[in-house]
């Protein structure tokens, strides 16, 4: 079966979504990222588990996606960034992240390992939050969400450098950063 027809096969995609979720949740739990203490430790800058997971995922993914994209197996999914959306929304998200102690993916993982505060608190709260956003979206979309457009969608366009160079520099930068974290005793 070719990839295009797999992408448009609804029931296959429902099953794949479930499978990707299961593996993702399994990995997050094994990494410790579904624990309140680990996430708050990251935000208090005493435990760098979450950053180690994210940074190594990005390093591998940078190379993997670059190759897959070049040989035509993966499409780039990038939208134009705006200050009004990415910065304002990101900061609101951050305040919730610190107050709840889980993010939308890890809250689901925390539910799976038995955290009832994640289920009756976090999960319910997020469902209320997205409902509020759906309600205010029409007016926000015409104003704040589109404020401060960033004309370049990707880092290499922004810097005016070849993509391979940014991928290489990004990987080296991440590896050096993780090495320094370990040396510093984190």
């Amino acid at each position, binding site marked *: 079966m070719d*990839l295009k027809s797999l992408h448009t096969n609804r029931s296959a995609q*429902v*099953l794949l*979504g*479930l499978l*990707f*979720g*299961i*593996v*993702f949740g399994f*990995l997050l*739990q*094994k*990494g410790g990222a579904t*624990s309140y*203490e680990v996430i708050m430790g990251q935000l*208090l800058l005493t435990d760098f588990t979450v950053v180690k*997971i994210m940074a*190594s*995922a*990005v390093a*591998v*993914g940078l190379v*993997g*996606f670059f190759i*897959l994209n070049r040989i035509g197996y*993966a499409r780039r999914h*990038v939208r134009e960034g705006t200050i009004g959306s990415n*910065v304002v*929304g990101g*900061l*609101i*998200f*951050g305040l*919730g*992240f*610190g*107050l*709840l102690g889980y993010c*939308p*993916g890890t809250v689901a993982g*925390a539910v*799976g*390992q*038995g955290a*009832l*505060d*994640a289920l009756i*608190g*976090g999960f*319910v709260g997020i469902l*209320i*939050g*997205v*409902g509020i*956003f759906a*309600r205010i979206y029409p007016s926000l979309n015409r104003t704040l969400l589109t404020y401060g457009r960033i004309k370049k969608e*990707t880092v290499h366009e922004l810097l005016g450098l070849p993509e391979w160079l940014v991928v290489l520099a*990004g990987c080296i930068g991440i590896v050096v950063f*993780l090495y320094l974290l370990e040396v510093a005793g984190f």
Partner: protein
Amino acid sequence: MNGFLALPLWSPYLVGVCIGLLVCLALVLSDRPIGCSTGFVKIRGLAEQIFRGKQIQEKEYYKKFPPAIDWQLMIIPGIIIGAFLSSVLSGTFGLFIIPPLWAEQFGSSAVLRIIAAIAGGILLGIGARWAGGCTSGHGISGSLQLSVGSILSAACFFAGGIAMAMILFGVHW
């Protein structure tokens, strides 16, 4: 292999490498970046539809993200199942309401913890959709595609998160 799956913790680097490969595989097989907050929009939309009928499909936001049981929604039950399996295999599954670190700082009132968790969840839900993604969608999937907006969002997730954590717990350095 069984012993390995039963370990309570894997190296964060091993977990990160596997997640990086998983995101690549999802881009190939499903043509989608792995993200979680859209799944919550779908669940919310379906719940609203049960109470208020099909008219909610006319809402501008639900036209953009139609309520349906699809790839993005299934990620959420998938994560719950995956984390459940992992914690059961390592014997770390356990029901609790108040995380120990929270109890240390704010005492053992379950009501207080749940109120804070709901408030935090509301901010997360609004913020994730406002920014167009969450820690996985922007922080990992978007960053590895070198999206400027995603990297900016991820930086703000942590800036806001660190600020709130330090307000609640003080500076630990």
